[in-house]
């Protein structure tokens, strides 16, 4: 507690970012430190779980110290510990969880376990002081593609999700097929800069008329089929055109389904969340579509879209306010449901 404000120290280690942050009263990030392992994993074309756990373990204490220093506070000022509990890689989650428990026990402060996807959604509260439920959230990342109705600070209903590949996974795999680096989202974004998005007509999987689910396996296969056909025919592939066309097909479906969900559920506010929400084309297309439909769109800045701990602190704050603290025997759940 400092000057009458509740201070939360939050940690996030569910995937390949080791992150810690300090939040004042849930919505103000006093610090947000992210130590990325992307360079370590790039050689493998993806996250390697054992390396991820080891990197988290080596970095977490230093990252937490740095978050406190950046916020200008000490351990003694911390009122609440927040930590990602799942979903994620179990070995990676356990490092954050064990560290958080140790801090909570040593400081005698409450601990709150947070759902990673709820945290992504909560990121929008940080930069938008007026945002309050109800709203519709589109969560798009490497492992998730969910449309979620948020009817209260702790009330989430999944309206639709992917039936096969997540949007970010489709980006990663299409990038690999095109010989572009990991992570695929930014690589495809760059490659698509000067490409023609209408060059290749990849399928848009809109599924049944009333469905809010997604399917991105088909467009991934579409890219591979296209590349195979062109190679067999001895034609040179224009990577920029394929990247732009692929990105457009994914973006179009994400935007169309979000608008459909808003209409079906009478939502007037839309929140974008998750790493893929940092994609430049998705941001522009969603902007335009929401404006045309008179929907209010909230997009966190890219640093709050990708994995970070500030979002975990915000989610922990709201959970603690309504539901209180968790016990110290809190466990990690790799498949934690929303």
């Amino acid at each position, binding site marked *: 507690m400092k000057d009458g404000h509740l201070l939360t120290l939050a940690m996030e280690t569910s995937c390949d970012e080791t992150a810690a942050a300090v939040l004042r009263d849930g919505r103000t990030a006093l610090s947000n430190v992210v130590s990325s392992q992307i360079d370590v994993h790039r050689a493998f074309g993806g996250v390697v779980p054992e390396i991820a756990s080891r990197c988290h373990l080596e970095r977490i204490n230093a990252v937490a110290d740095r978050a406190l220093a950046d916020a200008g506070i000490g351990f003694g000022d911390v009122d609440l510990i927040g930590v990602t509990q799942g979903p994620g890689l179990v070995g990676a989650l356990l490092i954050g969880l064990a560290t958080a428990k140790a801090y909570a026990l040593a400081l005698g402060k409450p601990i709150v376990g947070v759902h990673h996807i709820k945290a992504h959604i909560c990121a929008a509260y940080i930069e938008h002081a007026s945002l309050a439920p109800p709203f519709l959230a589109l969560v798009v990342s490497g492992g998730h593609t969910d449309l979620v109705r948020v009817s209260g600070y702790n009330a989430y209903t999944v309206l639709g999700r992917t039936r096969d590949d997540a949007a970010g996974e489709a980006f990663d795999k299409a990038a690999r097929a095109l010989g572009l680096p990991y992570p695929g989202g930014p690589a495809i974004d760059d490659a698509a800069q000067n490409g023609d998005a209408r060059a290749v007509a990849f399928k848009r999987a809109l599924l049944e008329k009333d469905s809010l689910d997604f399917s991105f396996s088909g467009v991934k296969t579409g890219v591979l089929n296209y590349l195979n*056909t062109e190679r067999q025919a001895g034609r040179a592939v224009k990577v920029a055109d394929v990247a732009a066309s692929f990105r457009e097909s994914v973006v179009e479906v994400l935007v169309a389904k979000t608008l459909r969900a808003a209409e079906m559920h009478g939502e007037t506010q839309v929140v974008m969340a998750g790493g893929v929400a940092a994609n430049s084309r998705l941001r522009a297309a969603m902007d335009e579509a929401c404006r045309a439909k008179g929907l209010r769109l909230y997009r966190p800045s890219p640093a709050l879209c990708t994995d970070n701990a500030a979002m975990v602190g915000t989610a922990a704050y709201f959970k603690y306010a309504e539901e209180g603290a968790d016990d110290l025997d809190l466990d990690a759940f790799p498949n934690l449901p929303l």
Partner: protein
Amino acid sequence: MERLLRNENETEALGLALAAKARPGTVIALIGDLGTGKTTLTKALAAGLGIAERVTSPTFAIIKEYAGGRLPLYHFDAYRLGGAEEMYALGFEEYFCGDGVTVVEWANLVEELLPEDAIVVELAYGQSADERLVRMKGACDASAAL
């Protein structure tokens, strides 16, 4: 044993046939490039086991478990793993020797860890966009699924 799968429905039929043959401890190794139908086959196999839950790509999570069917299903994906050592560290042996069916996508990346009696299913692109070639090795009564 090699066969042509003319479309996605035939890939699903193969998954259902494998489900019918599966016993506790069955390990199915799936090998094939991106988009050749590994997850499609696994979805059908899960349905054949009577699993109601939606089976999605395990690439991000690396391991997904499904209960509620005739046998539990353990769905691995070695795509993002650095090799057999990583798989070993995930405790794969407990799954392989367990009471359920284990499916390993990108099994070629962790080949040395697969049990000798694993059913190996190789999928490759065919002539047309819909066609796939499948080659199966392993338990002979499983090959009858073709």
